[in-house]
């Protein structure tokens, strides 16, 4: 006897379950990705709609993710944001973590922005880790010297490739304009403790461009990556290949605070002129303590009207075993 065919149920009228929506949400998210003609594959593959790393080192819990923005989904281009989180041990056996994030800034339509940001963040984080693995301690003066030296090495390294290198430009290095694979770069180094300690730890940071660093606490967001007078530098010309200087600084991170590095696809919606915005209020509440990996990705995939850029966030919770839901 032939199996009875079930009559197909119409899905017309059934609400399409959307991403986490803040406010009324975007037009883009109102249609399913398989139905809208707005969510296109990159023709060369590796869209990277979602990239995520989570893990622990010492007392730190770290979650990092990049999400392709709706703008690149609509144009069929891959995500141009990137992150790299590395760990190391100094010569004195002190654990530390290096975080680097980048936002590819290639000229409109350039396919090489993703190459630039990914290669830069990977090389920078690893080279800086090697540098401090040979040092006895991580201090501010050494950090400034090391980061400037490493950035120069990375600038040169990224400008050379072979044709089959991952995501590399098709033209030869001699013919390529670095503007086509330029990127912002924001980075931080902080110790990862192996024994409980109450005193704050020093976070050393640097930045080129408009990807800021925040501390999050029960009081909300505080932007850390500003110049000494508190002024936020004009980032219009500050990219890896155009910047003449790196903005460096340090901040003390208590065990009750959270360190957050983001690209502007997130930071533009956290705060404005000192006022916390709707997305900022939402993430501030959710990221006070570590979250499950699927929740972290879902958090970063928030749907908010006009928020269509690629997004990256690296969130670092100290004293992880004390933070419980």
């Amino acid at each position, binding site marked *: 006897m032939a199996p009875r065919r079930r009559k197909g149920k119409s899905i017309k009228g059934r609400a399409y379950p959307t991403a986490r929506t*803040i*406010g009324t949400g975007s037009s*883009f998210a109102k249609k399913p990705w398989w139905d809208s003609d707005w969510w296109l594959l990159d023709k060369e593959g590796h869209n990277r709609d979602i990239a995520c790393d989570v893990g622990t080192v010492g007392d730190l819990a770290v979650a990092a993710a990049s999400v392709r923005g709706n703008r690149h989904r609509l144009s069929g281009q891959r995500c141009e944001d990137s992150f790299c989180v590395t760990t190391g041990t100094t010569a004195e056996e002190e654990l530390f973590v290096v975080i680097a994030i980048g936002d590819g800034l290639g000229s409109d339509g350039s396919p090489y922005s993703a190459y630039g940001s990914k290669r830069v963040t990977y090389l920078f984080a690893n080279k800086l880790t090697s540098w401090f693995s040979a040092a006895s301690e991580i201090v501010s003066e050494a950090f400034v010297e090391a980061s400037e030296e490493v950035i120069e090495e990375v600038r040169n390294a990224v400008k050379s490739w072979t044709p089959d290198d991952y995501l590399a430009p098709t033209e030869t290095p001699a013919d390529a304009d670095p503007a086509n694979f330029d990127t912002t770069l924001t980075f931080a180094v902080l110790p990862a403790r192996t024994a409980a300690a109450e005193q704050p730890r020093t976070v050393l940071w640097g930045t080129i461009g408009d990807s800021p660093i925040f501390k999050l606490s029960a009081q909300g967001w505080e932007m850390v990556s500003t110049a000494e007078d508190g002024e936020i530098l004009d980032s219009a010309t500050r990219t890896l290949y155009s910047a003449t200087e790196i903005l460096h600084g340090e901040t003390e991170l208590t065990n009750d605070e959270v360190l957050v590095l983001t690209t502007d696809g997130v930071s533009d919606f956290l705060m404005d002129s000192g006022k916390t915005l*709707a997305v900022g209020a939402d993430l501030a509440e959710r990221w006070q303590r570590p979250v499950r990996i699927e929740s972290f990705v879902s958090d970063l995939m*928030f749907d*908010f009207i006009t928020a269509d850029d690629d997004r990256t966030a690296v969130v670092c919770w100290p004293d992880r075993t004390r933070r419980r839901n």
Partner: protein
Amino acid sequence: MAITDESNYADGAKVLPFYIVCDESASMDQNGGIDAINESLPDLHATITADPLVNDKTRIALVSFSSEAQVLVPLCAAADVDEMPGVTATGSTKYGAVFELLKRVITDDGRMLRSDGFQVIRPTVFFVSDGEPTDEGDWETPHAELTDKNSNPWAANIIAFGVDSADRNTIFRVATLKGGAFESSKGSAPAAALKKMIPAITKSIIKSGSQSVPQLVLPKEGDGFNVIDLDVIDEG
């Protein structure tokens, strides 16, 4: 699944309003301008609606003017409009009436967007006319009140297009941005020029709304119309 209530639903989002202003005077019927505009507006609407990102970052309104001015489509997201209405030829060409209307409407619209949580980028008016103003009084005063950034916090940018009997000097004075005054090319019929101008307006809106932060991108001159540059000596 809304996480927050919608009372401040756009908190931090930036939006760029565009006002498309069309001359509806009787002469626009005689030179085919009304038909050209009515044929082109549906394409403008469809193109913006088809782009979900531009739809969210821009707002459009349709305003017409002749002896009086009226709002045919109040400022809204393009996707919220079912169908663009047409324009209908009637009356004379009073510039002052439309500039007075725009000042009032743009201020009200801007305040409404702000109360919804949006940050409002300076509005842009695309002004299209086929003739000289027939105002009894001056139109320059309401124009200045609309566009003077020192006295009007909601001052608008104006990009002006002139066809047929519109004087290039007048269109140049209406426009407020360098490179923002256009006229039909010599030998180009008014209707034909308008059929090129409206798509140029569409492209300007699309390019403006396609950036991560919406920012005005001027229309480019094209086949049938060109930028008015009054620094150029015209021996013709």
